[in-house]
């Protein structure tokens, strides 16, 4: 991908953070606390960003890009495992990425038919996300057995547990 196109994509991806910083600074100047963006505002911003990316990349490349974007949480898990000394080979990384991505997609599809997070209260949504995380951990642990050594599996469990959404402290 040409460097100029990469820069353009990074511009689009980082624009929301820059706008948030600017708004926070302007609000602070007036002596108030900045309000966090509403759910609707975030959704509108995401739709606008998607539209901009599509117009820059074209339909086919945009589809690949969104596929990559959806796999970023799983890539972070693998990266974190390696940072913790798991030393995954390239083959292991690819296999594990496939397992993680497929398990996440499977759970999203199953959940999507019955659960709409945006229609739930924050507590209900939190509980649902935690249930999905538990399902993901179970699915990944079962399938990763054939890919990882026992030590690597322990590292994976630790990483998954640390990256999970935790229940609110009572």
């Amino acid at each position: 991908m040409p460097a100029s196109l990469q820069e353009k994509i990074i511009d689009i991806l980082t624009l929301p953070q820059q706008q948030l910083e600017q708004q926070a600074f302007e609000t602070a100047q007036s002596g108030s606390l900045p309000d966090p963006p509403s759910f609707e505002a975030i959704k509108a911003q995401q739709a606008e960003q998607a539209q901009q990316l599509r117009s820059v990349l074209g339909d086919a490349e945009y589809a690949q890009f969104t596929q990559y974007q959806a796999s970023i949480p799983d890539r972070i898990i693998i990266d974190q495992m390696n940072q913790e000394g798991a030393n995954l080979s390239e083959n292991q990384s690819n296999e594990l990425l496939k397992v993680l991505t497929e398990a996440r997609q499977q759970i999203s599809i199953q959940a999507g038919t019955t659960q709409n997070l945006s229609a739930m209260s924050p507590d209900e949504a939190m509980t649902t996300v935690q249930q999905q995380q538990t399902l993901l951990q179970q699915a990944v642990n079962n399938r990763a057995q054939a890919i990882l050594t026992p030590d690597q599996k322990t590292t994976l469990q630790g990483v998954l547990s640390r990256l999970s959404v935790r229940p609110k402290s009572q």
Partner: protein
Amino acid sequence: MAKRYPSSRTNFRRTSPWIIVGGAICLSVFLLLSPAAFRKDGTLKPVASSPATQPYSSIDDRSDNHQDAGLANNIAPPANELDVEKERFPSVAPTDGSTLETHRKFVAKVNATIRKRTRELYGGSFSN
């Protein structure tokens, strides 16, 4: 016939139970109405930082006294909330060029970091 007045000793005997009962009632009412004045550890909390008189708990209150959280959520903020907020978070409007310049440098640094992290995250898709 001269009227007989009770002695001061008898008077005290008659009134003392009422004083004790009255005092106990006052103490009970005070304790019922101001549970937030007491911390979990039993020490007295300054009234000024009680949720009943303050729209927002301090950071310390949020982290170490979850008992107050429910109570604080049920209390309607006062009408002059904005004034209180402004008092607690005074205006940070830059008054001179050096403050603006510091802010500009800070924002540039943050944006550079965000761009770098974004590039790292999406590096795989760029190499395709």
